[in-house]
């Protein structure tokens, strides 16, 4: 009998929680108000723009040259 009462109370409480949630979260408008394609396209373009491999190669080569021949930094600075 006690078990039956406990079960009833639990179910009753669960139903209260469900009802409280429904009241606490009002319905949201699920209609999309604008076309998102231009933004998707912008995002695709932005992520595709990157530094080309030959730029990285040039930076790497310069770093190696400066480490091997430190005086080159002065020559390089003079020409800037």
């Amino acid at each position, binding site marked *: 009998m006690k078990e039956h009462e406990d079960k009833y109370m639990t179910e009753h409480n669960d139903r*209260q929680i*469900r009802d*409280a949630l429904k009241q606490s979260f009002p319905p949201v408008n699920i209609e999309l108000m604008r076309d998102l394609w231009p933004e998707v396209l912008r995002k695709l373009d932005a992520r595709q723009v990157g530094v080309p491999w030959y730029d990285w190669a040039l930076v790497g080569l310069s770093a190696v040259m400066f480490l091997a021949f430190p005086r080159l930094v002065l020559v390089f600075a003079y020409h800037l």
Partner: protein
Amino acid sequence: MDLLQRFTHGEIDAFETLVRQFQGDIYAWTVRIVRDPGVAEDLTVETLWRIYRARHRFRPDGNFGAWARRIATNLAIDHLRRNRPEQSFPTEPAGVAQPDPLLQRETRERIQQAFCRLPAKLQVAATLALVEELPYDEIASALGTSVGAVKLRVFRAVRILRKRLSQAGIRPE
């Protein structure tokens, strides 16, 4: 070659057609979970971008809508995990079935707060099942799990919420 095949081959026109066809559905699904139109729009754009990036993994004979919904759900769960309410839930007794509208509003806010502090996966399952009252099989498909697992998540969410509200002295009407 059909639309989905062209999409998997990276044709941007095919992708544009799919975006225009499915953006509303992805947005509607996302906004039901995150409950914020601005965030839902951002997440929809991110979902569509990820869909394009993952196009090689999509089988053209598969269900594009279900696949998109699953990606959107995962992104929404990540968003909820990253944006959990910082403040702790107060444990003083308050808002015990009072007729005062101000107290009722406070109770609602505290229920929302307690709900948003649930683990993200439980929160999503409970939102879709209890707040949105969507069918369990639809939720299971979007979460990439079984109907039984969704029911278990909802059950756990209700139990945790009941315990937390009871500790805070809140008895929902």
